[in-house]
């Protein structure tokens, strides 16, 4: 259980795209790095529409708070992560869980859709040099602020990190 593990205060870098105003959060530990990129609902609609998926799927995913997410094993030993353990802690004290790739794929499967790409695999063991990227989703409204509690495990030990004051992308970019 990640929330009882020791918390590390990694160095978090926030970058703001001057053209779009969208933000990226990046944290690098000795073993693990993560990068979370705000994505607009319109962008998500366009991505899923380009895959030929039905409007129902497009509307469902784009109604979520979505981040382009890149995770990487930077160490010389295997490590594991599990998105289902991540928590999005909002100002009202509620710890929200994200909707995992497995949950989305299960829904799509029930709709007769075999598509299973673009989302970050919910749990993986990364060998040396392995990394991955994909969308992570949480059911929060556009613009919601939260602290992300996340982690990974290595050598049987769970590592817990927090990225404070993240924010879902707005519904649209202000002109």
């Amino acid at each position, binding site marked *: 259980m990640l929330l009882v593990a020791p918390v590390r205060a990694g160095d978090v*870098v926030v970058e703001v*795209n001057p053209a779009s105003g969208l933000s990226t959060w990046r944290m690098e530990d000795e073993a693990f790095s993560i990068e979370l990129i705000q994505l607009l609902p319109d962008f998500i609609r366009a991505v899923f529409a380009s895959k030929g998926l039905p409007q129902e799927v497009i509307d469902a995913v784009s109604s979520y708070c979505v981040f*382009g997410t890149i995770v990487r094993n930077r160490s010389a030993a295997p490590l594991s992560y599990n998105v289902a353990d991540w928590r999005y802690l909002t100002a009202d004290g509620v710890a929200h869980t994200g909707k995992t790739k497995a949950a989305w794929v299960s829904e799509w499967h029930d709709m007769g859709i075999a*598509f299973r*790409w673009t989302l970050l695999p919910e749990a993986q063991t990364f060998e040396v040099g392995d*990394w991955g990227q994909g969308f992570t989703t949480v059911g929060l409204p556009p613009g919601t602020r939260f602290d992300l509690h996340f982690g990974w495990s290595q050598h049987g030990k769970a590592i817990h990190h927090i990225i404070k004051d993240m924010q879902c992308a707005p519904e649209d970019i202000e002109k």
Partner: protein
Amino acid sequence: MRLKILKNRWILLIAVLLPGALPVAQEAIPELSYQLTRLEVPVAAPGFELADMDGKTHRLEDYRGNWVLINFWATWCPPCRKEMPSLEQLYQAYHDRSFRVLAVNQWEDVDHVFSYMGELNVFPSFPILFDPESKISEAYGVRGLPTSFIIDPQGRIAYRAVGGREFDHPEVIRLIEGLLAP
């Protein structure tokens, strides 16, 4: 927490997929790595029979006796696009020494992929195969793209790499040289 204004680090990638989306949506093309993981116990590679861009059928068993690098990819996947030229370089360097490359596309059609290939400086000369319903990638346990495997001459999975790789990196070259050494 530091705040740093974005400079030139991000590459505007989505233009390829969604020309109208810029500069609203941007995506990084992360750095590729180069390590491949050797399976301690090689396992039989799932067989397949897939069509290439010309409709010709390729069966994995037809490649028995060669080392075969199978790369699962898609055009919308940034690291897949980034590693493709190095895959071609590797293939060019070793295809005459019992080393083959098969790029297995996911969820896209021939026209779309052909159009993408036209954007590359070098058109890949290894077969591009189509796995439109991702059944083969599922059989290989592929969770995300790109994922690559090296199949040994006996048809067993010997190495695996999750995420994009620099296939022309000296360490990869050293590995392949070692595999092909008499």
